[in-house]
């Protein structure tokens, strides 16, 4: 297989020989080795069913929610094996945003942002809560839009606002890594642009992994790109290099629209 490690000084995540299968002998993700650059955006691209979502979910072990899952190999987060960490601790460090905005429908905006603390039984003082909510909503540039309606249900916001609320909910935990699973595929172009701007801004504080179907999005905002095909990591490198001079013919085929 092609050498797929990126040499970075300070990889926050290291994937080693990672294979994930849903049934014996059928791999969704096969023999992946990769280092994820800290404080950068890494895009994961590939056609449908190539395992990119499964790989992304492996980083906070959300893939374990599927029944009969088998995972081999390791992922190291700051040199610690995430398979041995408790999911509570891991998911605090590795936040996740989903394809469709999913604020909790029974909670208002304020409760949605601090939901992570509430649901994990972490007691906070009122002033601490207020600070966390304001900081997280400010980070996603939602604060000015919702500061007068914090106690309204999150589901009454527009789709783009809801998605930013979900990002705020993930940021409220102050994670190291942010996983985004096609976060803009259900949004209009203007909301998409706002979220892309946010992500570029977040680079200074967070390591971002972004699954995207949208090649131009990957080209616009990512530093590094992975191209996956049939569960394998075909090519991994600097986004600029990959888009201008792909090494593998399959990457080239995908990027030029021959399949995918």
């Amino acid at each position, binding site marked *: 297989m092609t050498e797929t490690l990126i040499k970075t000084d300070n990889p926050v995540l290291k994937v080693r020989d990672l294979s994930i299968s849903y049934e014996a002998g059928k791999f969704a993700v096969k023999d992946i080795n990769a280092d994820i650059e800290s404080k950068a955006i890494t895009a994961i691209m590939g056609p449908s069913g190539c395992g990119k979502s499964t790989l992304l979910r492996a980083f906070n072990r959300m893939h374990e929610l599927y029944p009969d899952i088998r995972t081999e190999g390791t992922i190291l987060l700051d040199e610690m094996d995430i398979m041995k960490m408790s999911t509570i601790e891991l998911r*605090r460090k590795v936040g996740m945003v989903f394809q*469709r905005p999913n604020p909790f429908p029974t909670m208002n905006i304020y409760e949605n942002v601090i939901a992570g603390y509430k649901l994990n039984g972490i007691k906070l003082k009122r002033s601490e809560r207020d600070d966390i909510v304001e900081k997280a909503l400010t980070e996603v540039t939602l604060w000015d839009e919702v500061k007068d309606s914090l106690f309204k249900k999150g589901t009454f916001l527009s789709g783009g606002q809801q998605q930013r609320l979900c990002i705020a909910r993930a940021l409220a935990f102050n994670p190291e890594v942010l996983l985004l699973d096609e976060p803009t595929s259900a949004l209009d172009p203007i909301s998409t642009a706002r979220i892309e701007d946010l992500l570029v801004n977040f680079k200074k504080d967070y390591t971002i992994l972004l699954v995207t179907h949208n090649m131009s999005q990957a080209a616009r905002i990512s530093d590094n790109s992975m191209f996956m095909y049939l569960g394998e990591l075909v090519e991994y490198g600097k986004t600029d290099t990959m888009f201008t001079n792909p090494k593998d013919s399959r990457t080239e085929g995908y990027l030029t629209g021959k399949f995918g």
Partner: protein
Amino acid sequence: MSVNNIPAFIDNIDGRNKKNKLFLGLVIALSVLTVLPIVLIVSKIIINGIGQINFNFFVQTSPDSLQAMSAIANQETIPGGIANGILGTFLIVIVSSAMAIPAGIMIGIYLYENQGRRYSNFLRSTTEILQGVPSIVLGIISYLWVVKNITNGFSAFAGSVALSIMMLPMIIRSTEETMKMIPNEIREAAFAMGTPYHKVILRILIPTGFSGLSTGILLSISRILGETAPLMMTALGSTIINYNITKPTSAVPLLIWEFYNDPNMVKLVWSSALFLMIFVLTLNILSGSLSAKRKTGRKK
């Protein structure tokens, strides 16, 4: 197909219209036939029952045959009421709900979370069989289990056990259906924050599906409210107001049966039936409005 074929279709349009009208008339006639009995039943119950409904009807216990007979002889309204039945029904329903609702919701969530597993398929078919068990059989079972062995005599608790078994399948099924309607993203969002499983259920799934769950619960309560046969073998009935779940207790349907067997108290059959009907109807309307809220309340 050539354009020339089209007039052949249009030629027959009169015949089609006639068939249409005939069919429409048939549908209307049949729907009237369905509504008619309902209107007749409801109006009969209201006309015969309304005369006995007064304040005492709700706060006094049921009269004995002699009181009723002298009242009829003097052409007065029959004294007393059905307070022992109303409170007994409440007692029995509350105790059976306390047993059936938590168990039913938990089993329903289990079935949803473990789709396609062998044990959950077995559980689901068991639930369906349970739904088909005649209520009188559940009465016999509860008689053997509870009356004979636990309370050592007829009791409200025995009635509650029989009725809670009746409630279970409905709550389980409605819980599973409600869980299917909660978008999977909501569940994932909760898990993605490291939320422990029990908190996902208690803090996310149950509140999110609250209106669906309450609809199922209200419907199951309205179904057991009118149950008579299992109560005859378990709660038995009582002429006094009873709050002790280990003692025989009356219930509105039991009173109706007792009134029916006493020629002097036939009037009370109608008024008790009216009360029961309005009570069940209220619950059904309430659950209907809850499920309507669920359908319109969600954005997108």
